């Protein structure tokens, strides 16, 4: 969508008397429609024209019933709202746990796939280190050093590449 650029003239015409609103004062109050228009109408009708419901006693009873039903409805709505908030939080938690479960499953699969290779690396690395030790005794120092370096690298790489705990 091609948005136009909002112009800003050099002069605004403002007289500079405006102050910053106090954040602690809630000046703007949202207009609210009558929450229970039918109950309000019945109660109003009962109080202003009691004969409409068959006399004072009957109209008081009708107004009371209407008020109680309205109150219960409001309470139920509040509870529903609260339950919805809880359900949304639970859904969010469930989504997080699913992500974590998927990550751990993937990590386990990768671990199982490379497990044998890692074990082989550790075994060969250890074997090379042992061989290097033996070679150093027989005087083949350059070969012994090479074997020791390769063996140590194999052991370290195999060790550090094994997935460990944690969720990252």
């Amino acid at each position: 969508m091609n948005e136009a650029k909002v112009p800003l003239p050099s002069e605004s015409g403002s007289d500079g008397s405006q102050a910053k609103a106090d954040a602690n004062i809630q000046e703007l109050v949202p207009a609210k429609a009558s929450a229970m228009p039918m109950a309000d109408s019945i109660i109003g009708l009962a109080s202003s024209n009691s004969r409409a419901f068959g006399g004072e006693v009957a109209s008081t009873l009708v107004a009371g019933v209407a008020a109680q039903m309205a109150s219960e409805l409001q309470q139920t709505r509040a509870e529903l709202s609260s339950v919805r908030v809880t359900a949304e939080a639970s859904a969010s938690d469930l989504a997080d746990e699913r992500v974590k479960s998927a990550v751990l499953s993937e990590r386990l699969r990768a671990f199982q796939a490379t497990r044998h290779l890692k074990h082989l690396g550790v075994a060969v690395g250890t074997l090379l280190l042992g061989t290097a030790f033996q070679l150093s005794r027989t005087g083949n120092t350059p070969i012994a050093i090479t074997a020791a370096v390769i063996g140590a690298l194999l052991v370290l790489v195999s060790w550090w590449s094994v997935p460990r705990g944690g969720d990252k």
Partner: protein
Amino acid sequence: MIVADLQELKLFPVADRGIPNQERIPIQVLKSTDLGKFGVLVGVSYYHKIATPVRDNLFWFGDGLVNAGDWILLYTGSGTPRADDWTTPPGSKVYSVHWGRPTTMFANTSVVPVIFAVQGVDVGASPSDLPQLGAIGA
């Protein structure tokens, strides 16, 4: 209540929210129209493009013809109205008008301006004058 979108005016996000004397509501004129049938009120927005009006917050532009391409900058503070020439599009104007509110209004991003168009009105009649003392019994 669901009503149709306005075709003549387009609201842009409030500029310089919460900054005294600079906070303004930019409005682009899409079609030539008379501003007399439009007003701005303040709403609290909970969802995108849905707002509940706030009590006792209404601005009426007053009668005035604007053309497509013009801009209206409604400053929330007080000041003197201005009309400046603007180049994009050529020949357009920028009208700066002022709400006259003593404090800023839109520091809270949930508070949004709402433009509305009046489709019809019914003005309450003034009460008839009381009989003049001199006319009694005349």
